[in-house]
């Protein structure tokens, strides 16, 4: 039982913290979010140069061979910095799917440029109707001769879908819409015939897209892994993604609590700082408690994943936790900032919105509590 970071982890932790402190203040972030790409391609290149995009991938795949703990360190800082660069979409989701399903040639074709920061990608799995059911896939892929598939269907709220040059699309090669097996994964170029991408901003300052697939023909060498066998890899990738956004959420909750406590010491009403009121003090203690409990659970789930243990319950536990605790901390931070808390100008509102978005991703609190209630 050890909660300390090793030297490499400490260096990584420090370097992310330093980068954000020096080069990524809130106004800069707002500028990136408002740009046409919705993030800074220059910052993304720097992430790649610093090696952060290589973190979770094995050395054989061109990565650094790190694991869930290192991803947690990065994501927690990205939460504090409110980072809009599509690390989750590229590295955790699309990269994770490629690493788990691709063969050597496919990895060198797509994962290597992804790690190098040269290829924007997105995992197009969730569909407009599927909500949080991972096995609900109505998109079909039918074989067209021996060396091609034809994909048809719709994908909804594809994170980074509007920026992606490569879409990793899940589609049924067999079975019915809700079957556990029969889902395959394809690497589809965005500019393939029949692909439509409707890009939009999301409430948290990130971007996503609705993706249409109208008889999109892809060659067989774009099938990732065995036909019909992508289900397990997708479930694992979504598990990783939950750990990643949970770390991000913990970072946000921590900074929101710090900022709220600071604000309550400086904001004077009735001739005294509002932090002197017990009604508010206890609410801030509840925020701190939510942070500490969430961080504890995050460490448990992350270390369990790093140990290669069965993380099914741990993943649902942490997602339920940050769903409920995140809502509490986000809402209280806004409330205690009073009118300023609901302005676009203040970072508090944007942290709250990102927490809200994270709550909706990959299964909300109710969904995961249901999974645990067996």
């Amino acid at each position, binding site marked *: *039982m*050890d*909660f*300390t*970071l*090793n030297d490499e*982890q400490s260096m990584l932790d420090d370097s992310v913290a330093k980068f954000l402190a020096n080069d990524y203040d809130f106004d800069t972030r707002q500028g990136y979010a408002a740009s046409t790409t919705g993030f800074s391609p220059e910052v993304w290149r720097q992430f790649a140069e610093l090696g952060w995009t290589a973190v979770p991938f094995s050395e054989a795949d061109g990565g650094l061979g790190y694991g869930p*703990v290192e991803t947690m360190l990065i994501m927690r800082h990205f939460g504090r910095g409110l980072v809009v660069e599509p690390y989750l979409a590229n590295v955790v989701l699309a990269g994770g799917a490629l690493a788990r399903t691709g063969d050597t040639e496919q990895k060198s074709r797509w994962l290597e440029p992804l790690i190098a920061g040269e290829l924007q990608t997105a995992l197009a799995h969730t569909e407009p109707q599927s909500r949080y059911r991972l096995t609900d896939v109505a998109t079909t892929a039918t074989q067209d001769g021996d060396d091609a598939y034809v994909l048809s269907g719709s994908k909804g709220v594809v994170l980074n879908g509007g920026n992606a040059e490569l879409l990793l699309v899940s589609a049924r090669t067999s079975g019915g819409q809700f079957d556990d097996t029969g889902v395959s994964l394809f690497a589809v170029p965005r500019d393939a015939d029949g692909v439509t991408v409707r890009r939009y901003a999301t409430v948290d300052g990130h971007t996503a897209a609705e993706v249409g697939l109208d008889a999109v023909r892809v060659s067989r060498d774009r099938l990732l892994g065995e036909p019909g066998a992508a289900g397990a890899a997708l479930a694992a990738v979504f598990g990783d993604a939950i750990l990643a956004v949970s770390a991000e959420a913990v970072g946000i909750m921590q900074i929101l609590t710090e900022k709220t*406590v600071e604000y*309550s*010491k400086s904001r004077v009403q009735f001739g005294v700082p509002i*932090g*002197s009121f*017990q009604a508010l*003090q*206890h609410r*801030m*203690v*509840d925020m*701190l*408690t939510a942070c*500490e*409990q*969430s961080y*504890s*659970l995050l*460490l*448990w789930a*992350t*270390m*369990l994943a*790093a*140990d290669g*243990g069965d993380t099914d319950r741990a993943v649902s*536990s942490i997602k*339920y*936790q940050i769903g409920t605790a995140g809502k509490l901390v986000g809402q209280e931070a806004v409330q205690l900032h009073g009118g300023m808390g609901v302005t676009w100008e203040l970072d508090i509102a944007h942290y709250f919105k990102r927490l809200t978005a994270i709550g909706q991703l990959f299964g909300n609190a109710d969904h995961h*509590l*249901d999974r*645990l*209630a*067996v």
Partner: protein
Amino acid sequence: MNLTFSEDELRFRDDVRKVFDEEFPADLREFRDAGVTISRDDQIRYQKWLHERGWFAINWPVEYGGTGWTPVQKYLFMQELARINAPDIVPFGVSMVGPVIYTFGSDEQKERFLPDILASNVWWCQGYSEPGSGSDLASLKTRADLDGDHYVVNGTKTWTTLAQFADWIFCLVRTSSDVARRQEGISFLLIDMQTPGVTVKPIITIEGEHEVNEVHFEDVRVPAANLVGEEGEGWTYGKVLLQHERTNIAAVHYSKFRIDRLRAQAERPVRGAAPLTEDRNFMRKLAAVEVELRALEFTELRTLAAVASGKAPGPESSILKFVGTEIQQAIDELYVEAAGYYALPFVPEQYAPDFAVDERIGEGNETASAPRYFNFRKASIYGGSNEIQKNIVSKHVLGL
């Protein structure tokens, strides 16, 4: 970062488990599983059993008879203790007054009191709260006036747990009213319960049991040699005592045991009905408590890790009390819900040692669920109410 215990730690745990499995008094274990009330004699027998193995005062320094265990070893030991559903250790001697005596007491006091605490030869109780001094403890009025080589004590202590069993009481008493701050002028005094002028009056609590008392002091003459440390420094010593309470205050292991048992109970059909596992509302509440408890377990482990590396416990330790007691109470509620109608029968006599379990109304301990639930409303009130704990966190952690 890693989750695993070292081989040495696992061996330690296995050794402890083996002893518990093979040597723990079988009748005590049966009593506990059947929810039978543990008598004074059985409580002492249990604590002596631990002492014989050197496992009673696990937090004491080795020189006074402690174990010298690491925080992780203590954690594992408490886990094993909960795993066999062992009774709680009565904390007033070993966890409260003992550390104050070995930290601030004279050599004579150490020699006189510590061995009997270790061996559970003497039962201690705690004289802190008064009828007019609850959360505002520093307003206490029980007086101890020096008269020659004795203090003369007058006043009333209340909520005194198991005073009816106690041989000695440790008290916070006012030795001076002429002070700048109310926390000054308070002293820490050890009083023999047999001294003339001490009377114990039962308070029957919500569930109908005699657990707490009022203790009255009327011109009670206490040798001045029973003063611990300096006169007027009792408040400081009392605070140190509270720090010693921190270990296991969250009762994580016992809550885990109770959750596991509740889950097992929920899987069995009761009286031919569908098992509770088919009740989504119940199972969702159970799952939510489990998540909170898992988080608390790691909050406690983080605290232990900080202490082990020589750091002062961080903010995570301050929340242990109120989160831990909230979880205990949530589990109590779930037991009541699980019992349904059979939470109603009020038949405490069927938890006497000689009452046949299969003659009970309700299955197993069902009818003990509501009394326990009522009784444990105390958990968020005692030891500094949860609201007081939040005041402390607000002041000392958040700096408000």
